[in-house]
């Protein structure tokens, strides 16, 4: 482990993770659903368990309901039906303690463009109730961790895409959360910055922080301990990246590779799911036809 992140000394939540009991569920969703208006089902009865210490990846096409699911887990949006608990606290009925332990990074840049890096950090630290005598020590540590110390006085609007995302992450870490909910944190960021961002995530993970991340990138999904594939508001598949890749029949793997890429594996899995659904629909239609004849 020669990761540069380790040397920066991010020591956030070691005490809290030590006191937490073994095998706690970071997230436990039970039939959580969200409807926009009366007929648009964004998230459809999702059941999900994420253990403490996981990096859990969420993938799926645009409009699959990933953001809506994350926003419900972050208590930004109330579930229409169902519920989820974050370290035992319900997002629907008891959001206050959930907000204390969750760090949420939305898909859009959730910072004030006209405020400097430092001012953004100061504002959110105060809003989060970080004790006055700890604020600057914590800001220094987090900005150092995100390699942003030298840009402290730059206005957020003048940061590069990658730096903006690192600043967003630093802001979500101010209150020392145990669970990070990241909604496509690296979309629109160049590959180098993307790798750096993931090094930071890996560092946080090693310190015991649970990460739940939506991503459109398969190489990022491959770094996760488990991956969920979401489509049409439903969870289609939850498994480890290894198992997903292993599920691809050997004859479909190209001769020049000894194992399928994550991308190929997902293309395959997606096709399988679609075929399965089509046959289910056909069966259902047949059933209706048969019932019609009988009556």
């Amino acid at each position, binding site marked *: 482990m020669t990761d540069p992140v380790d040397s920066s000394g991010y020591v956030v939540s070691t005490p809290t993770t030590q006191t937490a009991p073994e095998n706690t569920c970071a997230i436990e969703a039970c039939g959580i659903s969200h409807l926009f208006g009366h007929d648009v089902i964004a998230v459809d009865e999702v059941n999900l368990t994420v253990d403490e210490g996981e990096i859990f990846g969420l993938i799926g096409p645009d409009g699959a309901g990933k953001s809506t699911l994350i*926003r419900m887990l*972050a*208590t*930004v949006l109330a579930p229409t039906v169902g519920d989820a608990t974050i370290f035992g606290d319900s997002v629907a009925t008891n959001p*206050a303690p959930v*907000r*204390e332990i*969750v760090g*949420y990074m*939305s898909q*859009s*840049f*959730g*910072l*004030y*463009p*006209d*405020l400097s890096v430092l*001012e953004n950090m100061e*504002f*959110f630290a*105060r*809003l*989060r*109730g970080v004790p006055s005598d700890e604020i600057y020590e914590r800001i220094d540590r987090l900005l150092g961790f995100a390699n942003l110390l030298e840009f402290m006085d730059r206005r957020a609007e003048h940061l590069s895409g990658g730096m903006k995302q690192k600043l967003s992450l630093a*802001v979500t870490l101010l209150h020392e959360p145990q669970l990070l909910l990241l909604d496509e944190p690296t979309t629109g960021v160049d590959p180098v910055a993307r790798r750096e961002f993931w090094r930071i995530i890996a560092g946080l993970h090693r310190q015991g922080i649970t990460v739940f991340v939506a991503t459109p990138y398969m190489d990022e999904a491959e770094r996760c301990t488990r991956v969920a594939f979401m489509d049409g508001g439903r969870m289609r598949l939850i498994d480890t990246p290894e198992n997903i890749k292993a599920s691809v029949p050997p004859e479909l793997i190209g001769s020049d590779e000894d194992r399928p890429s994550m991308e190929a594996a997902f293309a395959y899995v997606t096709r399988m799911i679609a075929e399965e659904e089509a046959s289910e629909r056909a069966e259902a239609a047949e059933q209706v036809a048969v019932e019609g004849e009988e009556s």
Partner: protein
Amino acid sequence: MRASLRRILAIGSKEFIHIRRDPRILILVLVVPLVELLLFAYAISFNVTDVPTVVLDGDKTQTSREFITNFEASDFFKVTSHIDSLSDIDDAFVASEAGVAVVVKPGFSRALDRGEQGQVAVFIDGSSPNTAQFAQAYSTALTNKLGAEVTVEYMQRSGVDPTQAGGIDSYLRTWYNPERRSADFLVPGLIVVIIMIVTVQQTAVTLVREREQGTFEQLTVSPMRRGELMLGKITPWVAIGVIDMIAIAALGVWLFDVPMRGDVFTFLLAIFLFVLCCLAIGLIVSARASSLESANIAALLIAFLPAFMLSNFVFPLYSLPAVLQWISYLFPARYMVAIARSVMLKGAGMEVLWPQVLALGVYAAVSLTIATLMYARRA
């Protein structure tokens, strides 16, 4: 409680940074109101003088010339030309070269000499009602005065002592603004209208901007409560609004000699409450508006129209239809205009104005609560 105060202060100081970083806002809130005051106070004048007047002297005698001289000597009329035919009046009115035409009919002097009625006609261009109203009053007064002189002269010539005749003597005094200066009438109302426009606009965009920037979600997941957000948002604007309003009032007093006769403390308290009301209206707009543009337009409509039309600022409330009078109670401007005028011109204080001040206080509390509730429901 302390944590709550800390969060309100955190939001307040953040808002101050936003304001400081945006020179357009600073110009808008500090310079524009002063310019507006100057423009309005100089441009809107209800004092009418030097109305261009044409004269048609059909008699051309010494008596008719004396009669016309009286018009020429008045500050109100300014005789611009002498014309020869009635059709010239049409031309002068159509071309807006004259607002009043005075016609002395032929035989004017002969009729007076015989003790009959001398005939004059005054035509007034009614397309600007204010001027027309003044012109009518002035010319009636002037001809009455001249007519009375003629009568006295005639009585004296007939050997009757005019002082023996009875009559009615009216004693007219205009209170609070004896010279009836427009500035005294306008400035106290203008302060209210200008501040309403400036402040409503500012808070109207503030919550919409948080949503558009995506910062709103970060606020949601913090321990902050909605009410704290509202209070934090308005903190800097209360300060700016109050300072702004005092500056305009002071400028009115200093530059336009508008008196400040009443209780300054009552005035300051009312200003504070009024600014709160305006900011709360802005927040209500912001809680509902879907974009910055719609927030801006809604704020302008809500701030400008009622402040201008339903506040007693220019149009007297008692002459409005009853429905509009009721509606006027829904906007804070009418209370503040009443307070500003009473304090500045009439020397009033809390003992008279407490109902209006109380109304502003209740208005502020209710509208802030509504804004908070509406914002909560939206998200």
